[in-house]
């Protein structure tokens, strides 16, 4: 190849475009498979990227992802039938851990319920009420927009104070300044001392519809008969598994679990949640791969088919080009360029539709989606590859044609 210079590439490109333009409708229909394939890729990548961002933000909010959550249920399995028979997690376990654990110094209890919150004539149903102990703030990253966090005195003295989420503040107080005001939480009066920064949604969970109060005050008002969550933070990130073993031993002892029986409590980890999340996104990627592979295959075969038709229709043109000096490589290159451009047209349409789908999903469903510009390159890369793979055979067929036969072709 002596003349495969840039100029020649430009000429090939020009020839290909003019040839495709002369059969616009056919070209467009041919790309349909590619369009569907690339739309799928772009839309699903956008959804996964959106989920990743939301999840990463969530993890950051949780703070140290090594924190262990001792609870009456597992996060990652549906063995509700078994776990509901387990004994509640109580202060007895909390105290045993606080006294017995050498690997976790930061330990705090947590309780949750759902109540209606009112201020004057405004009210908000189904608000998440969390009762927290000392150390909670050290283990969770909670940023306040105004006011202060619950102090240790608030917590030890079981004071009737609370910090509220963004939505609670906005809906209840409207134009009033919330700090210092008294709100009614499930019939009990609490004084607002701070407002948490706006955090947005995570799936259909509204993270701003929340109230956080001292655990003692919570239990007094909403009843003591409930299972605790115990948060325990291993001192050494490298020794999380040892910490889990130690906690298990303490809990089995205090709950008098017979040595041949399984645990009757769960030690949950954010990492485990992450594993679950990874499984979910892997599933999405798998689905994307399946749909994209099938539609790109169909699209590729469509392109191959139309290029074979085109080669036959243009037999005479091939003969003329060869007679005036086109080499096999020139003909190959010309038809391959056409196939690639055809595939990339499909790719571009697919990218636009995929972005459209992502924006739509983000707007109308709880699933967050995020348009990533690098997926444009991915989409173009995929479609160009399909063009090359499925354009090669027709182009080769064109290239090896005998010029004499071509010129006598009607």
């Amino acid at each position: 190849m002596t003349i495969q210079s840039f100029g020649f590439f430009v000429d090939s490109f020009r020839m290909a475009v003019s040839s495709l333009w002369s059969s616009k409708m056919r070209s467009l229909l041919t790309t349909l498979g590619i369009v569907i394939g690339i739309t799928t890729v772009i839309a699903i990548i956008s959804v996964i990227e959106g989920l990743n961002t939301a999840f990463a933000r969530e993890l950051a909010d949780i703070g140290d992802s090594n924190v262990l959550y001792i609870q009456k249920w597992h996060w990652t399995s549906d063995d509700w039938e078994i776990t509901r028979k387990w004994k509640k997690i109580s202060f007895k376990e909390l105290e045993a851990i606080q006294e017995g654990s050498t690997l976790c110094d930061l330990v705090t209890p947590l309780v949750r319920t759902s109540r209606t919150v009112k201020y004057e004539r405004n009210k908000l149903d189904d608000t998440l009420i969390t009762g927290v102990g000392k150390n909670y703030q050290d283990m969770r990253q909670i940023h306040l927009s105004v006011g202060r966090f619950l102090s240790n005195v608030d917590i030890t003295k079981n004071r009737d104070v609370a910090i509220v989420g963004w939505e609670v503040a906005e809906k209840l107080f409207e134009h009033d300044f919330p700090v210092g005001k008294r709100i009614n939480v499930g019939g009990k009066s609490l004084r607002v001392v701070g407002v948490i920064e706006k955090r947005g949604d995570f799936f259909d969970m509204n993270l701003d519809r929340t109230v956080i109060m001292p655990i003692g005050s919570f239990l007094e008002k909403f009843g003591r008969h409930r299972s605790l969550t115990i948060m325990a933070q291993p001192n050494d990130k490298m020794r999380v598994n040892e910490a889990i073993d130690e906690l298990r031993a303490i809990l089995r002892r205090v709950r008098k679990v017979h040595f041949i029986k399984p645990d009757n409590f769960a030690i949950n980890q954010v990492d485990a949640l992450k594993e679950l999340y990874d499984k979910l996104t892997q599933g999405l990627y798998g689905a994307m791969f399946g749909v994209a592979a099938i539609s790109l295959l169909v699209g590729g075969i469509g392109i191959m088919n139309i290029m074979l038709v085109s080669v036959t229709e243009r037999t005479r043109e091939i003969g003329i080009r060869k007679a005036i000096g086109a080499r096999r490589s020139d003909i190959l290159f010309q038809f391959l360029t056409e196939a690639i451009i055809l595939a990339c047209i499909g790719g571009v349409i697919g990218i636009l539709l995929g972005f459209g789908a992502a924006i739509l999903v983000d707007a109308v469903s709880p699933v967050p989606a995020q348009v990533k510009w690098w997926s444009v390159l991915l989409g173009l890369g995929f479609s160009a590859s399909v063009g090359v793979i499925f354009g090669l055979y027709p182009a080769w067929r064109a290239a090896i044609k005998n010029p004499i036969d071509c010129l006598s072709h009607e």
Partner: protein
Amino acid sequence: MNLLRCTDLVKTYLLGKLQLDVLHGLNLHVDKGEYVAIMGPSGSGKSTLMNILGCLDTPTSGSYILDGEPVAGMADSELADIRNRKIGFVFQTFNLLPRQSAQANVELPLIYAGIPAARRHELSLKVLEEVGLAKRAHHKPNELSGGERQRVAVARALINRPSLLLADEPTGNLDTKTGIEIMELFERLHDEGNTIVLVTHEDEIGARARRIVRLRDGRIESDQKTGSTSGAGVS
């Protein structure tokens, strides 16, 4: 020195088990600047000879030297290069690309020669002017008359300044008057020093050449100079 020298040219086609000899050891020499008509009845082998002379086909045996280059044993891409640089084709059916303008058609050989676009436009306009079609440069073939189309084809054949202009029944699809115009164009190109080999079965057309080679059954039956007006002579 011969521009074109065929020695013992043999072409055999295999049609299944049938062996079909089309050329039987043909010898032909053409000098630079000659104007030769190859004539003969159909089946005489003139198309086959034309294809070999035009480097579209290679002989089964024998040698063919074009402008000092032994063409007979060349590979496909080398033949393409020879066609591009040394040969200009004019066909009976014009063979223009229908969707491209006259100028784009004329430029086509230059694309494969790797000439940049600006230079191509310049050269193509000049050669279209030579054939009297500069004003029709942007017309598509279907907007041109038969004679004009053939002149575009001649312009395309000339653009690389080839050593050999090969015309295969160039007037076959034209009416008499237009045919005469095209033949006058060939006359002029010959006067300007181009070497022309023309394949035809029409005596009137052949008679315009300076030399007539008659083929029959794959052999040269006769080879004579005509009484046409002088021009580049035969050595």
